[in-house]
């Protein structure tokens, strides 16, 4: 693991790496090859489990776990939280799958020498702005995923491969929403 402590540690890792970083980090996999790999993992989930992949549900469960401990009656009164309270919230397929995602990404990053403490941002954005935007984006995304009953993994990817009607409507609106807003947040990235 590469942990830099200098001010340079806060610089993002460029998508097209500078000569110094290029020696360190391996190039990304061909997108079509990575797509086939991801598709086979998804197919394995269908065949072995009879379900797709997911992510946002695990975050909802962590919230319900904490809230259910602090204010159980309050949590039970919300239909959204209550839907995760049929058993121990964290003893769940998606929670263990997301722990696997952390492990798998760490293994891949380690093998490619891409593990480093850094902030991903455009060259003209401050670290403070980027971290605030990351938090705000996450907040919006969780609300969107809850409304849609799934995120990019559970809806777009898994439902897309099953030709789920709602998943395809969802997927088109994700791209529409992101493209519509991209111009207005370009200073964060460009």
């Amino acid at each position, binding site marked *: 693991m590469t942990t830099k402590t200098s001010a340079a540690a806060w610089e993002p890792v460029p*998508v097209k790496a500078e000569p110094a970083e290029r020696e360190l980090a391996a190039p990304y*996999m061909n*997108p079509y090859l*990575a797509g086939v*790999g991801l*598709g*086979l993992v*998804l*197919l394995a989930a*269908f*065949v*072995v489990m*009879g379900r797709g992949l997911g*992510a946002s549900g695990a*975050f909802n469960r962590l*919230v319900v776990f904490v*809230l259910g401990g602090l204010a159980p009656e309050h*949590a039970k009164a919300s*239909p959204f939280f209550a839907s995760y309270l049929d058993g121990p919230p964290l003893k769940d397929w998606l929670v*263990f*799958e997301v722990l*696997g*995602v*952390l*492990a*798998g*990404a*760490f293994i*891949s990053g380690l093998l490619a020498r891409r593990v*480093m*403490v850094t*902030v*991903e*941002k455009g060259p003209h954005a401050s670290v403070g702005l980027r971290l605030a*935007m990351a*938090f705000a*984006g*996450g*907040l919006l995304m*969780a*609300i969107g995923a809850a409304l*849609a*009953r799934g*995120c*990019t*993994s559970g*809806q*777009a990817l898994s439902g897309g491969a*099953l*030709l*789920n*009607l*709602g998943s395809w*409507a*969802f997927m088109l*609106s*994700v791209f529409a929403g992101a493209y519509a*807003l*991209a111009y207005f947040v370009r200073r964060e*990235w460009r």
Partner: protein
Amino acid sequence: MIAPLFRYGLFGDETSLIVAFLIGIGFGFFLERAGFGSARKLVAQFYLTDLAVFKVMFTAIVTAMLGATYLAWMGLLDLSLVNLVPTYVVPQIAGGLVLGFGFVIGGYCPGTSMAAVATGRIDGVFFGLGLLAGSFVFGEVIRLPAVASFFTSTELGETTIPTYVNLPYGLVVFAVVLMALGGFWAAGLLERKAAACATR
């Protein structure tokens, strides 16, 4: 029929959690391999400079879709036993728009933010905290009757495109494959255009 294995009782709930962890490792591995632990790589999709998000996502969808379709045709996989998220048209379109806003503002989606956290991205950690905050906010506002009734509006149940438009399953699969191939060709074209603009 022998699959889905779990639905046919080949193993129990406890074992399914180990399976979840193993499948998660594969998921996270390929997300990071593709470069999706990097917010800059992901949002490049929305500035048309690098369309890896589209390429990876649609290759994965086509791969899993073709695999599931062929296994079902060979009588090995019962597709009716694979979970389908029920369709609620308007909330899912609205949710998609909000999620799209969050994607370009925050730079990740829930799955890729975990790949970012695992490879040391501090912004991935803040995105994850945002996810927890957003989940809490949604759980609170859904108590309002107006929000709750919007959430359950325009319900169509568990349905697929071939069922809804009444076309053969294989024909829709074929159309999706053609669409993806056309998209890959257009993506290459757009990337070359963006590169030409950048060097000009």
